[in-house]
């Protein structure tokens, strides 16, 4: 049976506490991975390993980190993601709330977007959480 949302959050929280050396109460659903929790690029590799193990899932890099879109001349102009690029990101990352990013889609800001809640929703889609 797929884990429920609380169980997913608990495991994601544990992975982030261990990977980033945080206290439980710092890892809230609204916390951003980079800005609030201080995750650096190399931490994401560690986090992906931990989540894959905790949930017995495979996490292709491009699903969580759409670098191919963010570096594509088809989707980026003058350092900003185009409308077509936003549509592509939304299709790829249905678990993330892109509404804020849409207002000022500067590529460099994208790394600051992902929250703990987004990560949980991503895992929920992978493990089939329904409640």
């Amino acid at each position: 049976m797929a884990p429920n949302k609380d169980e997913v959050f608990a495991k994601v929280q544990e992975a982030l506490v261990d990977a980033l050396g945080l206290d439980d109460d710092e890892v809230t659903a609204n916390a951003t991975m980079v800005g609030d929790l201080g995750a650096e690029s190399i931490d994401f590799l560690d986090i992906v390993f931990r989540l894959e193990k905790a949930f017995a899932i495979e996490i292709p890099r491009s699903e969580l980190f759409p670098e191919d879109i963010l570096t594509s001349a088809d989707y980026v102009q003058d350092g900003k993601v185009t409308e077509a690029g936003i549509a592509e990101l939304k299709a790829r990352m249905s678990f993330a709330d892109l509404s804020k990013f849409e207002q000022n889609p500067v590529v460099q800001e994208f790394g600051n977007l992902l929250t703990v809640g987004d990560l949980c929703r991503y895992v929920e889609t992978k493990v089939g959480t329904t409640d």
Partner: protein
Amino acid sequence: MRWIWIDRFTAFESGHRAVAVKNVSFTEEQFDDYTPGYPLMPSTLILEGLAQAGGLLVGEHYDFKERVVLAKVGKAIFHELATPGDTLTYTVVIEDIKPDGAIVRGTSLLEGRLQAEVDIVFAHLDDERFQGVDLFIPEEFSQMLRMYRLYDVAKDSDGNAVEVPEHLRAAEREVYGV
């Protein structure tokens, strides 16, 4: 001084686990200035030895074609001090490995006691950003593996001996003629 912090491999199971020994000797330079009068093996160098053993285990899994770098030390606990005359036995185990990198768990034993335990994340430098960058000179790297006696003990998952990859052999042939 060579930046080599393991003496040799005593076991090497491709893609899974390796054991290496490190004999701590008073002739090593770190004892000149580190805690003078009370010779201690710096824990950072024990970590380095574990990372070298682990990095080679990870690298061998991809025939030493990936650029493997130590990315992060998730945990490093040292339970006991090591001093000249000690033999440390390092065991490294791949917890997980994928094209992006690997997680390795390492332990150091001193006379059978747990001396240190570490978790290390290794990353593979990607071709996109590091095209043309070699971390090692192939023929020298291959010689180093031989000096570590890696191929004397290395086995694959079926128990068959692991051979020196052809690209390293070719580099040795070209430069050393053997």
